[in-house]
């Protein structure tokens, strides 16, 4: 319990510092500090005790993590850009969770994550512009449409294995982007504007003010995306800590053996693939409204790879790792303005380094515990 809480507190302070500083030398210094600190902690076995305390008192620490996020948001209450970054992290984390169900648990490769994210965003763009569907309802609709379009791929996804399965989604990712570019109905390469979110007449795109403190309009989006993340997180948690999670693992590790013990492989692949796409589309719809703009270039194959790399960086199958990895992938390139030109290069090199020297990711997935805090 204590190590986890301490780690969270430190992380919060660090995140605030990193988001606050602008001067490049300081940013670089902070990043270097983080790397050294993590490596050191790992050496001294501190990381292990942290992850242990997370495994034992996850619910309490989860609540603390939410609190920490709100502290960060409060600190930057009037800073549009930082809040936009934070919101982006939260939404990407949801998408990563969805992808994690597919790749991390069920072993169903999906290299079109960004496409399903985009389907959600475009759904939001179209529905907000042409229908009166309440925006809170538009979000799940985005998820449903993504799942629906995903189901077109079910047959090939179910029939193929391994690399053959990879090509199905890769082909879809390219198909999807080209389709958006050449068809005018959805704005072509120019993309579409997305109306901001409006909940019960309260437009999230208006700045607010409490007394004489004025608040960035992104705070509203922060609350919504935070709620979405918590929901997705709990769902995934329960999924893993149930017979379903076990089924998915068994299927990923050995389809044949799982089949010999009664597992209906097709059924669980469908469930995992559909559920994953739903979460991704759900997140995409919200992201569309936050960004206020959708264009094919946001949803390229490269972006799909970015999502997959988040899984890998965080530690496949570990939601906490995903959260950390998402933060790194989204925020670090933004902060390192001096290396703007080189950001993709450095980022790619980082992923390669992780794959070579820490393939299990930053926070490796722990053994399954079916009931939190349960002991034999």
């Amino acid at each position, binding site marked *: 319990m204590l190590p986890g809480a301490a780690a969270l507190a430190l992380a919060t302070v660090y995140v605030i510092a990193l988001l606050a500083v602008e*001067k490049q030398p300081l940013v670089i210094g902070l990043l270097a500090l983080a790397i050294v600190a993590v490596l050191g902690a790992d050496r001294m076995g501190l990381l292990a005790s942290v992850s242990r305390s997370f495994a034992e008192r996850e619910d309490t620490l989860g609540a603390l993590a939410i609190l920490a996020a709100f502290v960060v948001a409060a600190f930057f209450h009037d*800073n549009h850009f930082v809040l936009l970054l934070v919101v982006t992290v939260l939404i990407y984390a949801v998408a990563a969770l969805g992808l994690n169900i597919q790749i991390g648990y069920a072993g169903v490769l999906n290299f079109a994550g960004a496409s399903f994210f985009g389907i959600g965003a475009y759904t939001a763009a179209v529905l907000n512009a042409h229908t009166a569907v309440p925006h809170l309802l538009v979000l799940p609709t985005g998820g449903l449409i993504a799942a629906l379009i995903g189901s077109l791929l079910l047959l090939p996804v179910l029939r193929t294995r391994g690399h053959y399965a990879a090509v199905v989604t890769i082909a879809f990712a390219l198909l999807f982007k080209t389709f958006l570019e050449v068809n005018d109905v959805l704005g072509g390469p*120019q993309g579409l504007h997305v109306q901001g979110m409006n909940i019960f007449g309260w437009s999230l795109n208006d700045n607010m003010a409490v007394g004489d403190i004025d608040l960035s309009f992104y705070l509203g989006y922060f609350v919504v995306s935070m709620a979405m993340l918590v929901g997705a997180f709990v769902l995934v948690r329960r999924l893993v800590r149930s017979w379903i999670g076990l089924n998915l693992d068994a299927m990923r590790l050995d389809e044949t053996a799982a089949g010999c013990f009664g597992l209906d492989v097709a059924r669980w692949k469908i469930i995992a693939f559909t559920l994953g796409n739903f979460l991704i589309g759900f997140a995409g719809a919200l992201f569309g409204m936050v960004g206020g*703009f959708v264009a094919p270039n946001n949803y390229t194959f490269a972006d799909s790879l970015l999502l997959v790399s988040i899984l890998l960086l965080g530690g496949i199958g570990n939601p906490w790792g995903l959260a950390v990895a998402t933060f790194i992938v989204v925020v670090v390139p933004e902060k390192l303005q001096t290396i703007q030109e080189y950001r993709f290069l450095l980022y790619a090199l980082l992923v390669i380094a992780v794959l070579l020297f820490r393939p299990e990711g930053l926070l490796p997935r722990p053994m399954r515990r079916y009931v939190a805090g349960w002991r034999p």
Partner: protein
Amino acid sequence: MRRSTTSIPIRKMLSATVGATVLTGLLSIVAEPAFAKDTVKIGFIGPLTGGNSAIGLGGRNSADLAVRLRNADTAAKYNYDLVGLDDECKPNVAVQAATKMAADRDIIAAVTHYCSAAAIAAIDIYHKFGLPIVVWGAVLPDITYRNQYAEVHRVNGMMINQNETNTELVSKLGYKTFAVIHDTTDYGKGHNQYFSQALAGKGGKIVGTFGVTADQQDFTAELTQIKALNPEVIYFAGLTPLAVRIRAQMDKLGVRAVFDGTSGIVSDAYIQGLGPLAEGTLAFLEGAPNAKLPGGKFFMEKYAAQKYEGPPETYGAFAYAGMDLVLNTIEKVGPDRRKVIDDMAHVKDRDSIVGKITFDDHGQNTVAVVTRYVVQDGKFVEWDDSEYASGKRKLPGQK
């Protein structure tokens, strides 16, 4: 004996000084460099990476030149700090960059966008956050005319004038049949629209229109169809990277039509990309070439003096003029977005290196002059000075 006793304090002193220097070194990284004047942040956005980065960097350098000259000027009230962001000529990236810049309250005003596709996507953001901007290269009319945004201004001209001049020239040369290839961004679509309108008035005939995506590699299919249609001119509405590919593949397929481009292909990169094949390409650009600009000589000299890598490219002068206008305004009304916007609403006959700047009620500068170019011996030469005009050389099928 004595040596040893004396040596100790020396060593102490040494270590102390070393420590001090290290410390000051560290501090100097952290500490804010002190200035007499307040520092004001202003912004620039353009394609700093990707296929159009040459023009983007030229624009960035030109804007930076305006800032440097101002900072060097002791009479200036403020010290200016230029924040440059990349829009990669992509709408989505442009929106991100615009949000980042507009959301930063310390940035008072900005000079933004070479690509129409990027600009048209971003203007809503500037409006939402109330950041005054001056467009330095994008030519789509909608950027200033679709809405009535007080924040949005433009120093360069629009594609309408371009296509008027274009169609005049090609019909004067006696061309009757045209095939149109346009990229499917608003830039390409817009040009296609205005070109067709202008051409209709002059009795030219469009035998085929082909939309292509902005990152397409292979055009043999489209060009083979065009070959069958056998037009005298292929009008291309798009940017340099595509133009290079299409022109090269025309040659492969033995398509002998004249290649007639827009402002989007007027760049050194086009010439370098094609070598001799570029010969005889037509292109049009609003405003006069740097050499003939009122302040052209001054601009080129100052630019050269700064030893930037790469030339200012086609729109550098506009980026400079736009930035200079912004700086003048801030000097006049102070670093306040609202005031800057109000003052910019009344810009009339302001002298600049690109000539007098006058904003109409949409913030559009009325640039009458459009320059006609033809590629001759690996250079964009003004049509009237070219051997094609004098009749010494002839374009395919030129009357």
